[in-house]
């Protein structure tokens, strides 16, 4: 079989997580690609991929759409999307297309791959566990020989998560990581780092100023012994304070010199908002908190994947409708898109991430937004 080695993670570090996921997804692509290439070459000759992609190009342009051709039969996103979008695809017979929720899970795996390569947020052991579940599912449904190996990665990940696996790296402390390398000039007051977005994993240490969010919605500075809620601007109160109350009801927040706010969300320190009369930085839309829903957008519908409900597009406002229009122009037939908590429509594609514009919460599925967009 393939000589490609899947990486068994040794710890929960971002590098170990990336290595495990990257090699797992490559191994799946390799084995499926080999299976497909062998079969297709035998049936249609060595130029089969060229012929097929040319056909797809012609078909797309006849419908006034773009087709970005693939050059590799080993790319997981092509392997999954070609048969998904084309009911007559010759690739279908190499995949368990009728298995329960096969395409749902396989496309989620592709989206996961895209997120991992365009955003650092997933590079942790919990996201790795979710991603490896999808890998094992796809591999076992496709009856790949790599399945037992992926299953051992899954077990290792669970052992690391539960602390059952301590790893060889811990015993061998000479293994250096970036975090161990002493900073060139260690200063007492570490300069605040610019955070990527509301929702991104916090970069750097915990800021000094500590604030308690009470269940009443008041913000108390414990060392000043003062209610400092009014330090937030009106708009920040309507957006961030509301978000904090929804996410943790009560809890601790830390504010740095730049007015960036940190808090633990389910045990992970994240940037959760901005504080006070400052100019808020431009945020990276691909690092923001996402709504729990994911959507499928096609030329004639936008569907909530969980419920199957279709967005009523008759009375959409200008902003939302032009965002959807742009997404439909940029994307091929039907793709998975996500919406950030504050209304950006984004897409984690195989060729990069895409930002299509804003969604007005008033136009959207009634219960999906927890905080109204401004």
């Amino acid at each position: 079989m393939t000589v490609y080695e899947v990486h068994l993670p040794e710890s929960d570090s971002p590098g170990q997580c990336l290595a495990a996921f990257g090699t797992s997804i490559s191994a799946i692509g390799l084995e499926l690609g080999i299976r497909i290439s062998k079969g297709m070459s035998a049936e249609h000759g060595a130029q089969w991929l060229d012929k097929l992609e040319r056909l797809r190009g012609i078909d797309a342009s006849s419908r006034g759409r773009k087709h970005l051709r693939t050059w590799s039969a080993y790319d997981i996103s092509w392997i999954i999307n070609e048969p998904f979008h084309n009911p007559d695809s010759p690739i279908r017979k190499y995949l368990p297309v009728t298995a329960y929720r096969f395409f749902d899970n396989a496309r989620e795996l592709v989206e996961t791959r895209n997120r991992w390569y365009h955003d650092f947020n997933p590079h942790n052991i919990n996201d790795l566990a979710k991603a490896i579940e999808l890998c094992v599912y796809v591999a076992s449904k496709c009856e790949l020989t790599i399945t037992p190996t992926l299953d051992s990665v899954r077990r290792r990940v669970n052992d690391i998560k539960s602390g059952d696996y301590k790893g060889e790296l811990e015993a061998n402390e000479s293994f250096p990581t970036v975090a161990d390398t002493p900073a060139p000039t260690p200063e007492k007051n570490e300069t605040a780092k610019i955070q990527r977005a509301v929702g991104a994993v916090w970069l750097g240490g915990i800021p000094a100023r500590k604030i308690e969010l009470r269940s009443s919605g008041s913000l108390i500075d414990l060392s000043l012994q003062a209610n400092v809620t009014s330090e937030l601007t009106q708009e920040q109160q309507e957006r961030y304070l509301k978000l904090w109350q929804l996410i943790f009801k009560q809890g601790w927040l830390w504010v740095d010199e730049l007015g960036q706010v940190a808090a633990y969300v389910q045990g992970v320190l994240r940037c959760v908002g901005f504080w006070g009369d400052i100019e808020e930085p431009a945020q990276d839309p691909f690092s923001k908190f996402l709504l729990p829903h994911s959507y499928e957008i096609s030329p004639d519908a936008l569907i909530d994947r969980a419920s199957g409900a279709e967005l009523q597009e008759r009375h959409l406002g200008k902003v939302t409708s032009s965002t959807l229009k742009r997404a439909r122009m940029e994307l091929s037939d039907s793709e998975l898109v996500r919406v950030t908590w504050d209304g950006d429509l984004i897409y984690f594609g195989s060729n990069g991430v895409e930002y299509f514009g804003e969604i007005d919460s008033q136009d959207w599925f009634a219960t999906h937004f927890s905080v109204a967009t401004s």
Partner: protein
Amino acid sequence: MKYSIASVEVELTGETRAITAAGNLAGTAQIAVVRTPDQLVAEVQVKDFGLEKTEIKLMEFLAPAPPAYGHLDRNGLMTVQRLENGDWVALLRALRPGGREWPTLNFVAMEELDSLLGASTQDWLIGLGFTVGTWAELNPAAKRFTNSIAVSIPVEKSELLVLPWTLTRVVALMKQLGENKVVDL
């Protein structure tokens, strides 16, 4: 001995402390320390007053308690019963919203425990030496909650009950068991 449960650290210190009441020895307490990534540090005790009364409880916050855990020194008690063969048996209920201002102990499904742990809870508990079943299956004296999940364990390993206690109390609070999902995490 240290264990990690969904990034929460549980240290079984091995220390056993005498519990005295009015100057008399009333029982013993095995001491564990629980630390979460979001700054909870607390002492949890397995308190053994003999056959009549055995319980597991957070006794002391060792650092100011993050607000989400603020009630944990007043609720989250796990009561333990003894089986005829001497094994300890306890019901697994978890802290979640239940009509009061703070989370209270309520029914929890195995799938929910799995998502708190991030792995199969059944396999994890069995690996530690627990027997897993319903309350009625494990405890012949069960009257209420007969279909709830329960665990039993030989008395020599009884302090390990701190681990499912942590999952159903501390991890449940940290991961907000039963709360509506506002954003994808």
